[in-house]
């Protein structure tokens, strides 16, 4: 296992992750637009309501009931997960290379990401 092989594998996995995320967002979007959206939309004012779409549990709950906005948010969550997965795979890769310094470096980045994502938990 060398750096380059590791990066190529990671790059491919990321691409697949992005495609799955985009497909999920697209499916949610089609559902949203075909469910008779007749009213006007206006995003002039910042009114963060519908808070069930602002947490992991709420999004998953909404998505498994095939609610359109929940599906879109689930796709976006998958997308946000791709760089996190990239860092996690780097931790494993550096550990396999027995590169202690960079295993620790990538672990620190992973912890910072986790600390930030806990906010949406």
């Amino acid at each position: 296992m060398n750096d380059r092989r590791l990066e190529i594998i990671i790059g491919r996995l990321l691409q697949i992750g992005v495609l799955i995320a985009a497909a999920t967002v697209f499916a949610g979007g089609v559902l949203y637009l075909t469910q008779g959206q007749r009213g006007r939309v206006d995003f002039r004012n910042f009114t963060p309501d519908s808070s069930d779409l602002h947490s992991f549990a709420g999004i998953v709950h909404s998505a498994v009931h095939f609610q359109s906005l929940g599906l879109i948010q689930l796709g976006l969550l998958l997308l946000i997960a791709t760089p996190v997965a990239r860092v996690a795979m780097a931790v494993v890769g550096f550990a396999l290379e027995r590169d202690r310094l960079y295993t620790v470096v990538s672990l620190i980045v992973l912890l910072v990401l986790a600390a930030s994502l806990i906010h949406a938990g």
Partner: protein
Amino acid sequence: MTAWEFSAVVWGLSFLAGFLGALTGLGGGVVVVPALTLALGVNIKYAIGASLVSVIATSSGAAAAYVREGFSNIRIGMFLEIATTLGAILGAFLATRVGTHALAIVFGLVLIQAAVQSFRGNKGGDHPVDSDALATRLRLGSSYPVDGNTQEYGVRNVPAGFGLMFGAGTLSGLLGIGSGAVKVIAMDRIMRIPFKVSTTTSNFMIGVTAAASAGIYLSRGFIDPRVAMPVMLGVLGGALLGAKVLVHARVQTLRAVFAFVVLALAIEMIVSGITGKV
């Protein structure tokens, strides 16, 4: 506007932004946010939320292509991500505290910087340097392909580069952009990393940096699915097409035109911020 009209217009604008962003290397976010706020009257907090998500999509989507070229340096990227992710968390918290007018003005100033850097063009291309003591201990130096040969390069000024990367992360979290321009300055100009390595490693870092703000954006309601859906699908599609035609395009002229557009948007953003229109 109806939901259909809004989604279609936003998708089209985002596709164009992603396409031009990929061709010019400025990224889609710098155009998407002003387009949404100035042309469609979308609140800037929803706009930067949607932009942040699309930044992650283009970074992760392009990763495989960049890796194949063999320029990106995963060690430099990972080490500097400690700085960018911490900065991104700070920036995202600031974004939840700062008012929309102030956000618009700061955004405009960053756009001016991006346009100016684009006008100057990307020279880079200095001779590779030897690593200094700290960079040697961190094993940041590596090699990259040049005309079929392998060119070794070193890294300098790690603390200064690390500090500027924290600033790049803060801007990214505050404005929902990749801030690739600042990342490239930190690596190319300050740390003396070859330009090709700097730009591809910057792309690698952009997605991870953005992910560090995403949790805070999500929990504070910046990411509205009705806005983010067409933006993400549009920017991603445009960026993928842009990467495909990049090889054949004459980028110099396009870059200059795009820089003018960005400059115009910057002035409009600042004026709108000051007069309270955004």
